[in-house]
């Protein structure tokens, strides 16, 4: 009755789930360990990443965005990955694990529909049946993504319970899984949830940071001073951080969504609240009221709109290995437009948070500074939304 891999990051993480789900999580842990040691699995995973998804992604030096001559800034172009965001990496890995476990169905949650879309494409490719839970409000707000998922053969199930958003979709996916674990894998979309998900999701995204290391050494002959990434649950951030955690000269900077301001209740900055607790199977920083009821999060960016953060980020924060800042909706929207105007790249609103903070760092730099920003996704999905906001109808 114990785990084969470390289930906690310091005091964070763990497996706070009904006893019923423990055998399924143990099975997943074992399948993951076996797969990591199986050259055939690795070859298939790497082959899909390369020939289907388009890895490695480029590392692009910005030309016009940064005015401080002391600063060199690069963008890790996960926006160019098939599917339009980093999410495709780990989804392919977990879909292969699903097949390895002999399961035929995949359950997933989705907020804006990005993880759902990634799940749908991987399931279409690998012949798995996907059922994707999505808050009823999000189904309405994100019609194009719902259509994309259905186009690729996934069943999209609207969730009315609770607030009808991402956290309720996670609840519903967990409920489904507790009745269907024999034939279905729960393909969790971020580096949160119970062990072994935070570890699996990190390992299936760690090529982001590995590629950055190689690319930056080639281009600059040294490691970056800072690696900056946005943090909702924290999967793109842990993916780009993982390979640098043991390189203390590289600063790791996570950027949470401050929404309308972290003093307003309208935000999703779980670490900034400094309040820890248990949500969706893990002990971590969460947004909660004085009794421990989970609070609604808010962000202009649906992908960051989650009231908790992955447990490894909580730990990296506490031990001081990574620092976490936050950026408001307005600042992110400004960075969104700036990158389009100056570099001809439309970033996802999520990634715009990382960029906005990196621009602040660039402005403040008083010595030679090399910054890498994880441009975790492209902004096509956000265009209608941003247009409405800029016109003032939102």
């Amino acid at each position, binding site marked *: 009755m114990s*785990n084969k891999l470390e289930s906690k990051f310091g005091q964070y993480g763990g497996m706070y789930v009904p*006893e*019923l789900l*423990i055998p399924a999580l143990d099975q997943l842990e074992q399948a993951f360990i076996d797969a990591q040691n199986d050259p055939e699995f690795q070859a298939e995973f790497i082959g899909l990443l390369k020939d289907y998804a388009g890895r490695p992604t480029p590392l692009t030096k910005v030309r016009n965005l940064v005015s401080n001559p002391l600063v060199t800034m690069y963008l890790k172009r996960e926006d160019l990955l098939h599917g339009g965001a980093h999410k495709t990496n780990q989804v392919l890995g977990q879909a292969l694990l699903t097949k390895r476990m002999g399961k035929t169905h995949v359950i997933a949650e989705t907020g804006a529909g990005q993880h759902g879309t990634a799940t749908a494409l991987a399931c279409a490719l690998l012949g798995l049946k996907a059922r994707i839970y999505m808050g009823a409000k999000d189904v309405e707000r994100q019609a194009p993504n719902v259509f994309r998922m259905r186009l690729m053969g996934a069943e999209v199930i609207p969730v009315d319970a609770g607030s009808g958003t991402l956290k309720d979709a996670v609840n519903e996916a967990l409920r489904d899984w507790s009745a269907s674990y024999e034939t279905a894998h729960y393909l969790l979309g971020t580096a949160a949830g119970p062990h072994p998900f935070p570890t699996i999701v990190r390992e299936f995204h760690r090529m982001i940071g590995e590629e950055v290391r190689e690319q930056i050494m080639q281009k600059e002959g040294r490691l970056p001073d800072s690696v900056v990434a946005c943090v909702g649950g924290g999967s793109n951030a842990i993916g780009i951080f993982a390979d640098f955690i043991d390189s203390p000269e590289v600063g790791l900077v996570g950027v949470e969504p401050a929404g309308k301001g972290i003093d307003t209740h309208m935000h999703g900055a779980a670490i900034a609240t400094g309040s820890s607790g*248990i949500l969706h199977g893990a002990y971590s920083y969460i947004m*909660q009221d004085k009794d*421990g*009821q*989970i609070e609604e999060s808010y962000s202009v960016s649906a992908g960051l709109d989650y009231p908790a953060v992955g447990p490894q980020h909580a730990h990296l924060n506490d031990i001081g290995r990574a620092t976490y800042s936050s950026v408001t909706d307005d600042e992110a929207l400004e960075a969104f437009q700036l990158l389009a105007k100056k570099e001809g790249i439309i970033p996802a609103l999520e990634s715009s948070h990382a960029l906005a903070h990196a621009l602040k760092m660039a402005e403040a730099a008083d010595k030679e500074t090399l910054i890498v920003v994880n441009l975790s996704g492209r902004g096509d999905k956000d265009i209608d939304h941003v247009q409405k906001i800029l016109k003032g109808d939102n």
Partner: protein
Amino acid sequence: MQTSSTDRYAQLFDDLKTKQQGAFVPFVMLGDPDKQTSIEIILTLVENGADALELGFPFSDPIADGPTIQKAAIRALDQGIRPDDCFEIIAAVREKHADIPIGLLLYSNLVMKPGIEAFYAKAAQVGVDSILLADVPLRESAPFRDAAVKYNIKQILIAPPNASDDALADIAAASDGYIYLLGRAGVTGTESTATTPVAELAAKLNQHKGAPAVIGFGISKPEHVSAAIKAGAAGAIAGSATVNLIHDNLGDKQLMLQKLADFTQAMKAATL
């Protein structure tokens, strides 16, 4: 008030054994549909034959519950029910019924927020006998079990139908007061009934000579109760079926209490 020598569960299961009966244990959500009615509901259950009580604290994100219990939690939260209200309801019930075992069934974050020690101390103070945390498996249970021992509360663990024999042995050894045997996979609800070969599971648990096994999940009719007892369980827990009677009669409190009384009597009769 509870004294350190009180073991209401042991007393109950001894008495029932002598009388050759099983235990009927209804579950309701504290504060559903409001604080005063909740007290009346629980007293009705006790006065119509409930052998013990399972009481829920409303939580915003109940991952182990189906729609019926979720809605009950939302009703209570919408009434502004807070943990202190829940403790007050329990204290009111305990004042009238000194002997009935009272168990809590809730989610871990409501315990983590005030602090494990503080929560267990408060529970002991109002006369709670057991605590079951729906999202704390044996593997994460140590700090909660330590607090339980300190405050003379029984920490209940769940024995799921898919557990290995080794896991069942560990759960049987660690669960105090009784063992909550899951009648089936999935979440709470009356949509599907207990399907697992519970007799086999109950027999395995009984072999380990741990606390008595009580079956929950999918118990909504008297025949489910008698089947559970026949399968070797010491009792049966009905949650969603009980809560449905509250939901279906929200407009007529007297009728609601009457239906709960009739239901409790019928379910208790099936344990004889």
